[in-house]
């Protein structure tokens, strides 16, 4: 890796391994993965079930730690950071979109989106309001600000989650199978929304998916197989490969 490349990388992963231990059995989930993700990319991680997609995203998202190798997020080696610093990194640099939306049920749509801003304590009330409403408008839910999550459809919930992930203007948004719980049309809409935000705000997106259609929006597809980095290909190549693989 040349240093300039690593400087423009928002995520830089070098020879990362991850072992899970189940009792006495050691399950290798990642077996030495290298990956560079540059700012503004819209990257999909693909691979069969159990190939390590979720594991890799968790490492990038600083919610888990690698067994070996180096994970750098926004230039920082996550191994060197304390629990508090990791949390702050997640709060300020990373946005999360979950497969099952993970909204706080007792809070309104507005409050869910506002939540990370409150944790940040950077904006005052009026500023927060403006920012939240701006995002709700972008995801098309401004009129639902006062609703509770359980009053929304799955697609709407995931839009709220997208708004929440982006409200702090993170450099990087991670989404592990964001469309898996949605029908294909709705899933498509979510990916379109993400792509739109990627292009407008320049936010980097890394998401995993099984869905070839979803994959097709990506700048690049990183393929994993059995815990190994297989290749990094274009979306078109990926859909061809998937069509060929019958999957």
């Amino acid at each position, binding site marked *: 890796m040349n240093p300039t490349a690593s400087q423009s990388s928002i995520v830089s992963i070098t020879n990362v391994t991850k072992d899970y231990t189940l009792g006495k059995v050691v399950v290798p989930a990642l077996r030495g993965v290298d990956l560079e993700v540059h700012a503004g990319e819209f990257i999909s991680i693909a691979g069969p079930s159990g190939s390590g997609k979720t594991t890799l995203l*968790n490492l990038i998202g600083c*919610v888990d730690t690698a067994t070996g190798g180096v994970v750098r997020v926004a230039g920082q080696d996550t191994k060197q950071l304390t629990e508090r610093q990791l949390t702050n990194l997640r709060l300020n640099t990373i946005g999360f979109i979950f497969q099952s939306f993970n909204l706080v049920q*007792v*809070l309104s749509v507005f409050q869910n989106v506002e939540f990370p801003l409150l*944790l940040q304590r950077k904006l005052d009330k009026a500023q927060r309001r403006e920012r939240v409403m701006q995002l709700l408008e972008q995801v098309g839910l401004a009129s639902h600000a006062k609703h509770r999550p359980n009053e929304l459809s799955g697609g709407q919930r995931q839009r709220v989650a997208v708004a929440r*992930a982006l409200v702090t203007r993170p450099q990087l948004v991670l989404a592990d199978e964001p469309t898996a*719980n949605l029908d294909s049309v709705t899933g498509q809409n979510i990916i379109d929304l993400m792509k739109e935000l990627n292009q407008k705000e320049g936010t980097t997106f890394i998401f995993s998916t099984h869905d070839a259609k979803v994959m097709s929006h990506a700048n690049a597809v990183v393929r994993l197989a059995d815990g190994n980095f297989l290749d990094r290909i274009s979306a078109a190549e990926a859909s061809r490969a998937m069509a060929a693989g019958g999957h």
Partner: protein
Amino acid sequence: MGQLRLLLQVAFRNLFSSKINLLIGGIIFFGTLLVVVGGALMDSMDSAMSRSIIGSVAGHIQVYSDDSKDPLALYGSMSGEPDLAALDDFSQLRPFLEKHPNVKTVVPLGTSGAIVTSGNTVDLTLSNLRALYKKRDEAGETPELRESIDSVKGHVRQMVNLMADQTAKSEQELGGAQKDPAEVEALARARTDAFWDAFEEAPYSALELLENRIAPQIPDGDMLELRYAGTDLDAFQRTFDRMEIVDGQPVPTGQRGMLLSKFFYEEFLKMKSALRLDHIKQERDLNQKTIATDPDLQRWVKENQTQTREIIFQLDPVKTRKMVERLQKLLGSQEPALDKLLTQFFTTDDANFDTRYAQFYSELAPLLELYRLRMGDVLTITAFTRTGYMQSVNVKVYGTYQFKGLEKSAMAGALSLMDLMSFRDLYGYLTADKKAELAEIQKQSGVEALSRDEAEEALFGEASDNELVAEATSSDVDDQAAFIGDQGALTRENLLQRVYTQQEIEQGVALSAAVMLKDPELLEQTMVELRQAAKDAGLKLRVVSWQEAAGIIGQFVLLGKLVLYFAVFIIFVVALVIINNAMMMATMQRVREVGTMRAIGAQRSFILGMVLVETLVLGLVFGSAGSLVGSGIMALLNSAGIPAGNEALYFFFSGPRLFPTLSASNLVAAFVIVLGVSAISTLYPAFLATRVSPLQAMQTDE
């Protein structure tokens, strides 16, 4: 700010979102309710009882001799009267105690118990008759006197007849085995016309037969246990201002005399039939019991129906006739027999009771002596002195007294009051009078110097020949006058009349001093200071609070409080465990939510804050609800009052009803306890919540 508001919002919204929270809330609600109501009740009872104890006899502080073997127990202890050493000179103790700026008044006290013999109706009537004959012997016969003698004689004859009838009846029923033939014979003789015809010829020997052979066959002569407090009666009245005279009058300043407790007077000296009517009335009116349903009331009615002898014996022939007439009119009956009429009259049920009760007091009572002792009578009190001799003292009963609000309390009514002089006599200490008497003996018996022991024996001795001490019944007095001589009799007469100076009252023995304080709040501090002062002055004194001085009674409320607090403790330990477990479950249920928050950037401290705020809100909301309902209950109880139910409780309630009040401290205590318990019980679950990994957010279980 925003965060806190968010946390509060989350907390409030979570409040009713899960059943677990409702469970915890329920526990907190009832816990608070219990602490508020229970605590307020206990406090109210505590202060009511302390008012009872302080206001009746104890004062705030009691001071007594440190040489005492037992601790002071004003209401008696399990093992009888405590063995106390005397305070030799109260007149020196008082100024010492009054030196303390917080001491308001000091009253000398000595409590003790004695046996009072109250002769039975036959005894009293006979002694009455004997007195009339004596009067005739002294002053000569007048027509009025003759009439009185005949009337009393008729009364005695009627009693003898009644006794004979009853003996015959019980003989039929029981087969008549146990009777002493001499007694049977005496009764038979006393019934004959010959006996009564010959009465006037030798009245004293006839009386003797009646007194020695007939009267003892009546079993209702009572030995009453009387507890009394010897005190400076004026100072006592001034200090314990709840005290009020009910019958009679106060003992004149400086004189010997006694004030019976109204309770004692009613319970033990009132005619049983009347007392039972009173009891029934009270239970019906106060406690809403009915004769139809309550076994106690039924028993009293039954006893009144069967035990009419006490009434019948009281009546001479004239009064008997009147009574029969009145009863016939009241009952609309032609029945000539008084006992049958009485039985019919006392056959009461819930419908006629109130009428009969009123009729008894308006129609029948005027013909009766309702009490065995009248105000102004002289009571003979026999007690064991400190040294173990039997000692009797005659004290004039001036009146009865009670403590306002404690009229029905056996505990507050346990003590009758007596002047200090009589008390000292009974307790076996040399009073100035006794010393003078002793000097008299020495002069008469020609003994130059008696040792103190001998002197005491002479003065207080039971079986000594020196019958110096007046004994009970007036009939004996003449016989003893021979032994004692005119002078002795005079002395006794004088004793009852004599007016003692304040100095005489105070210069002498007391067993303890009751101390009233200006500021009761400073009780503990004052006690400490008095102890120190006593130590500095070289006085061997024990200084105890009213609570200690009350002995077992004082421990009652303490015990009640302990029980309550123990119950509260148990409840809260259980609550602690339940809340803890419930919170753990609640946390487990929210693992994904917490994980999500952690993933999107919430620090552990935020999670901790969230759980704690939720518990706090839970505690405050349900705690407030509990306190609110508790306050409501207390307000209700305060306006309605809790009926004491039975007389024993009067003392603890400081009256027939307890009007409990809720103090701010009860509410504060409830809140502190509730919030403390809920905070403690969430600590571990809260800790667990902070350990939830952000990885948990990735669980896909929807």
